[in-house]
């Protein structure tokens, strides 16, 4: 059983990652409850999603401080939702900065010490630049599947085949090989980038 809290910025693919996690848990034979906050259609706003699975699940929402896994496709979004993670929980964080318009218009400051904050807040983590690696693999949009691969390490009761079948059911055939490769890279090879 597990509680997974996902955060990112509109347009990054958080909702697809949430659907893949929920499908994988269902494929593994669990009950699933998942919630997505997509608010308004515009791009650039904060987006969160939550997935809970186990023998029986009631509420689709995770109680603060009880998430087993925190997944973030943008690194300050991990800090924003750090309090959702339980002590000792695993954080999968993509090392990517998306500067909000509140910063470029001069009304706010994007922090310069993100890596230090992440090192302090998340002792159990993998902090990795998924977007850069996904770009090397041919498509920056694969960052969400790669992050899903990273966080899958902490969900040991969902077997690999359940993950692969979930991806097969959610992505178009054209991008399937790339998505499977990105997932496998995240699951096996991506290393934490803070020494």
């Amino acid at each position, binding site marked *: 059983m597990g509680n997974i809290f996902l955060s990112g910025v509109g347009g990054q693919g958080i909702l697809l990652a949430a659907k893949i996690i929920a499908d994988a848990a269902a494929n593994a034979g669990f009950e699933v409850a998942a919630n997505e906050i997509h608010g308004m259609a515009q791009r650039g706003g904060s987006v969160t999603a939550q997935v809970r699975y186990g023998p029986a699940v009631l509420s689709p929402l995770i109680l603060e401080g009880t998430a087993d896994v925190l997944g973030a496709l943008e690194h300050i979004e991990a800090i924003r939702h750090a309090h959702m993670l339980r002590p000792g929980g695993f954080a999968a964080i993509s090392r990517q900065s998306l500067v909000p318009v509140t*910063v470029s*218009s001069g009304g706010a400051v994007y922090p310069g010490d993100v890596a230090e904050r992440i090192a302090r807040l998340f002792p159990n983590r993998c902090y990795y630049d998924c977007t850069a690696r996904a770009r090397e693999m041919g498509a920056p949009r694969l960052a969400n599947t790669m992050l899903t691969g990273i966080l899958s390490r902490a969900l040991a009761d969902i077997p690999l085949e359940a993950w692969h079948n979930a991806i097969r059911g959610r992505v178009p055939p054209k991008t399937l090989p790339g998505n499977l490769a990105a997932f496998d890279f995240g699951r096996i090879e991506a290393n934490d980038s803070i020494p």
Partner: protein
Amino acid sequence: MKPTRQLLSGNEALALAAIDGGTSAAFGYPGTPSTEILENLARHAAPGLYCEWSPNEKVALEAAAGAALAGGRSIVTMKHVGLNVAADPLMTLSYIGVVGGMVICVADDPGQHSSQTEQDTRHYARLAKVPILEPANAQEAYDFLREGFEISEQYRCPVILRTTTCVSHSRCLVARAAPRPQNHVQFVRNPPQFVPLPIWGRKLRVGIEERLDAQAADAARRTTLNTILPAATADCQQPLPTAPLGIVSSGVAALHAREIFPDSPMLKLGWAFPFPDGLIRDFAATVERLLVIEEGEPILEEHIRALGIACDGKNLVPRCGELTPARIAETRARLEGRSANLPAPVPEAADLPGRPPILCAGCPHRALFHALARFDVVVSGDIGCYSLGVFPPLNQTDTILCMGGGFTVAHGMTQAGEPRRVVGIVGDSTFFHSGITGLLNSVYNQSPAKLIVVDNRITAMTGHQDHPGTGTTLMGRSTHAASIEALAAACGRERIRVCNPYDQAALHTILEEELAADGPSLIISRAPCPLHLKRRIAPQRRIDPDLCRNCRACLKCGCPAIESPDKTAKPRINETACMGCSLCQALCKFGAIATRAGQ
């Protein structure tokens, strides 16, 4: 595990339940969080099921009533504020009733994730004296819609099905039941039932009270909808004589509450109105203390008190905002006189920049608002993406009331004597929804207010739905595309100007001329939503760092594609985000912004 179950959102489950339940016709107007019901219905429905986006919720509810009066099953979908628009037909439909089952799917938005108000649709059920069902998750959404049709046909009255954002947008594994064929459709004349002239309306009025009594007794018996759950920790073989605390709850709040109070029995109400008094009394008799946990207004709580049963409720449970496991954990802590001690955002998060919703890169509304900012006007806005024009750096909306209010509020301000020019703005979908009557009024009563339609050719904010001006229906058929200019001309509007907002010089001239003119005028600012087109408006722009003097004028348009993490660094344009609208280029006095080489 049952392999036949599907992982569905509440809205997807409602669409499939409508299909499996033999719906003949479905109607609605887009509104978060209800929109995906009809989108999924259109995607999955067989050819015999008719579905449409109506121009507004009143039209949709009336059309669904017509379908049900002719004997077919129908659904109508809307968000909570949509039912305000559709309230007039709802009240009378409760009198004349239906023949085929009719379910009104209304999605409330507690916490106002994307709504101007927080409303509890259960008030409308009481007002209209019709049953209301409240599913807690997608499986219940499926089951309750199917059951709602049965209740509607049994009592020949419409049924409201209330979801909330957390039900509409949460997924669980859903088992579908056997599909049922559509009803035979053939209207049967029966004026005393279907024509509410006072002579017959008075009889119908009495019948409604008899119907409510029968439904209240029925609701107490329907265990698929209203159930008493023993304490999860209790030994089911050995029921305790009385529990120290019992919970009464409904909707998704019941699921949160079940996790926070696993040691208490619960009366979970899926059919909450008409109130199942017998069941409430029976449950209350088995507990020493009663706590009502309901999302929104204290409707159950006040009724339970009126039955003479003492209970806790809004003294411990928040009345405003969405209920969550955390807020119910706080309720439990309050009840037990201790602190909940839930983790709060970490200190490292205190100074993080926010990410409010903003107009997208390339949005034509930004171009209109940017041009408008050069005039001293009061702006009466409306509901749509363009609501976001209120935020800095555009700061171009002064008030918003409701759908269509952009035009009419502006008219009222001018007629009261507001000394400045007043501009009323509505979007294209909003214009067809309820802007036309305001336009007609402004001509009829010779309003000096200046009206603007920001026409991006789609219902954008809810995720790009067609409307009467797009030339396509929900079922994908080509149709007549209504012309805003022709409608305005037919209303008698003489000064009608159409412009492309990306042409800032032309737009400025039009605004200058029309704001100076005495009579009424209508400006149509027309450019399609680039997010919907899924392609760039023009070649992408870049900032030449050698020519850029870091004057930061380009940042004044608030485009998210222009990045400048701190004031010392010259702005740059994000190549994945820029849509090529050229607004920033028009703002640069030093010629530093141009199209990217090779484009």
